């Protein structure tokens, strides 16, 4: 049976007249021979026959995936897995190289004391990039290999396609196949268990796209360039205007900031401040200084105190040892020799990698300079810092600072005691360590 593709009910009614017109006026050309089957087993058996006849431009159409039909059709294994494998390996390489270059070469950045290029830390990103590349490649390569998206195919307008998407199966052998010979193909399909055969004609020329779509296409393409043009302009020009605030109420919150003038309520506090001044004589919680020697380590005349303003006992020294271990030892070392882990690493970095890096080593606490300092001065250094060292007032409470000073004194004593003054037992004990 010969038939032509015609506009079907599923076509858009607005275009049916135009399609009909085109189909009627266009030269018709043999497109394919279509055979229809009732069961998956029947179409599988027929596929094997068509496969063995050596056709290439043909396809089986089934409403659902039929297991085993690939083999029956003689479909070669897809190269998609290899493409995805390549993309995955590329992704892994790109992910790893990106992290290596950004973190270890382009902008060396020390994180958590790990090496600049540290494989374990880079695995998650490498993994994600691998998956990203593989997934996108699998999706787009699958579309590409299937020649999708296809906006037009003669079969789309074949009325029987509705059944092939629902409860019937079909084999289509296209006329463009090298082995195509109408009589032979018809004979082959007739003997393949089909319930109907059709010779399908289609217009030699595809229906032209309605003109309005050309206009829409051009406008849409140009419109996509507009944001790019704005970005390019912003990128290469200067502007005096403030930046655009996209989220207004977050960028400009109705509140007064610390130390800001208060134009709105000028005069409310008697001045133009945003915040009210505290009542005269107010002392903030925890700021009351009862004992200036204890708090500042200084006498009234500004000289450093020479004796501890706290009771020095074993508990204080032990507390000092613990606090020293936490706060001071990273730079000054556990024994106060100035060679803590920070110093070791900084020295190594300065020697091997630091471009133009200067490192002033931390003080050796048994230096004569420091031995001669009164306890008040040591306390002052812990509190306010010195040279590179920052002040620890915010982190260490007053009593603990004195405990540290007491422990530093103990370290100094240990570092300066002459060997001769030790008893034999003490010496033996030290050597055994």
């Amino acid at each position, binding site marked *: 049976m010969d038939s032509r593709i015609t506009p079907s009910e599923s076509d858009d009614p607005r275009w049916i007249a135009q399609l009909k017109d085109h189909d009627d006026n266009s030269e018709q050309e043999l497109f394919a021979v279509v055979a229809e089957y009732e069961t998956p087993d029947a179409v599988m058996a027929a596929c094997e026959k068509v496969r063995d006849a050596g056709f290439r431009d043909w396809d089986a159409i089934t409403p659902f995936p039929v*297991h*085993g039909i690939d083999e029956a059709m003689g479909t070669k294994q897809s190269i998609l897995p290899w493409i995805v*494998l390549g993309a995955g390996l590329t992704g892994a390489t790109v992910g790893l190289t990106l992290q290596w270059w950004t973190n270890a070469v382009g902008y060396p950045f020390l994180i958590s004391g*790990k090496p600049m290029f540290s494989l*374990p830390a880079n*695995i998650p990103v490498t993994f994600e990039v691998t998956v990203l590349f593989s997934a996108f490649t699998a999706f787009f390569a699958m579309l590409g290999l299937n020649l999708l998206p296809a906006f037009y195919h003669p079969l789309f307008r074949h009325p029987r396609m509705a059944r092939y998407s629902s409860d019937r199966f079909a084999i289509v052998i296209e006329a463009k196949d090298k082995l195509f010979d109408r009589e032979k193909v018809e004979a082959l399909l007739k003997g393949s268990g089909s319930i109907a055969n059709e010779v399908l004609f289609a217009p030699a020329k595809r229906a032209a796209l309605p003109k309005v779509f050309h206009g829409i296409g051009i406008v849409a393409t140009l419109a996509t360039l507009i944001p790019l043009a704005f970005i390019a302009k912003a990128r290469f020009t200067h502007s005096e205007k403030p930046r655009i605030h996209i989220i207004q109420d977050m960028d400009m919150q109705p509140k007064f900031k610390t130390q800001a003038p208060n134009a709105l309520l000028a005069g409310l506090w008697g001045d133009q401040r945003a915040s009210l001044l505290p009542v005269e004589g107010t002392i903030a919680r925890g700021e009351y200084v009862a004992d200036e020697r204890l708090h500042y380590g200084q006498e009234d005349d500004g000289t450093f105190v020479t004796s501890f303003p706290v009771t020095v006992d074993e508990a204080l020294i032990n507390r000092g040892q613990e606090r020293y271990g936490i706060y001071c030892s990273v730079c000054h070392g556990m024994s106060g020799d100035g060679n803590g882990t920070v110093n070791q690493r900084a020295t190594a970095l300065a020697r091997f990698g630091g471009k133009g890096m200067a490192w002033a080593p931390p003080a050796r606490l048994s230096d004569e300079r420091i031995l001669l300092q009164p306890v008040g001065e040591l306390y002052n250094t812990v509190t306010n810092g010195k040279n590179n060292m920052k002040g620890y007032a915010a982190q260490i409470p007053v009593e603990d600072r004195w405990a540290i000073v007491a422990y530093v004194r103990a370290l100094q004593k240990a570092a300066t005691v002459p060997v001769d003054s030790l008893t034999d037992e003490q010496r033996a004990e030290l050597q055994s360590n």
Partner: protein
Amino acid sequence: MASHGIELTESDLRMPESLRGLGGKLMPIGAVIAIIGVALAFVGADSGFKHFQFAYLTAYAFTMTIVLGGLIWLLIQHVFRASWAVAIRRVGESVVGLVPLMLVLFLPILVPILMHDDSMYKWLNHSYAENDAEFLPNKQVVYGAYLNPTFFFGRLAFYFAILIFLSRFFTKNSVAQDETGDLATTRKMEKFSAPAIPIFALTLTFLGLDLLMSLDPHWFSTIWGVYLFAGGMMSFCSLLALLCMTYQKHGALKNVVRKDHYHDLGKLMFAFVIFWSYIAFSQYILIWYAHIPEEITFFDKRQNNGWEWVSVTLIFGHFAIPLLGLLSKHVKRHKPTLAFWAVWLLVMHLLDMFWVVMPNFTSGHVPLPFATIALAVGMLAIVVGASIRSASTKSIVARRDPRLGESMAYHNV
């Protein structure tokens, strides 16, 4: 019963004599190998009862995780109403039903510690927590409350009770259906499998925590149970593939198990190679990055004194190499290649358990592995022999399962 014209005859359902004979032989052979393993623990550099204990625990952890991997595999098949696995389910069930045997095999671990031997589990000593200066004060309370002998033995009894119940329930019901053909049995197993999964997950987690993680009582990892599950599941799928091949070699399951079933088992093996690596790495990166003394000890032991080579072997042997090896569909559909990777993964799982347990025995060096290997091979042979023997007494296919026909006609390409 079957679609696509596959009909099962009585001979398809019975185990061939030669296979039954193999099952009978494997158990004594396994016992002999295990005894050789015991003897090997008492020769060489680290010889002694303690070596035996640790080697035995390694072998036990290896076998037990496989059997428990089988149990969760079975639960998953039921909860998803999976049809593909029905044809090979009975083979899997024959392993899963061995939890009571695993209780018997647990005795060599249990008896010494019941007799107050604390060389493996240091905290079994009542005064350990109090005297251990490394314990932080707040942890002392936790360890004292959790890791104390009475509670420990109580928990073990509880775990085994749950696991034996689960394994009996699902194997018994499946066999019962062979006679009755009752569809309600399938529904019942589906229904019970859903709550059984979280119960199993908690049991495996706490069992792993008590038996393996507490070897190093200072250390903890919240992903530990998942880690053991991943390795166990991977190894069980490997063992199941090997078992099916053995059945087929002896002429059984000829018309029942297809390439497609092996393909799916291969996919699961591949998936769990990746999952194990994912979990192992998740555990590693957090501890490595934070570098907290109380956590880092675990990896510190395993990155020094020769253990680093075991760790590196795991990274390549348990992840990178099988990842690439099992990637291809053809490898998974081809019996000899799949068998190769199944054996490979079982060896790697044993190495994994060795890596988990043995650094607690000698962290200073890697002990000779021969005692552990002989014990593990022996124990696995006993388990495989017992599984074949138990399968020989009933139909080797779940013959009246409503999804059997679908499973036998199953294509996955």
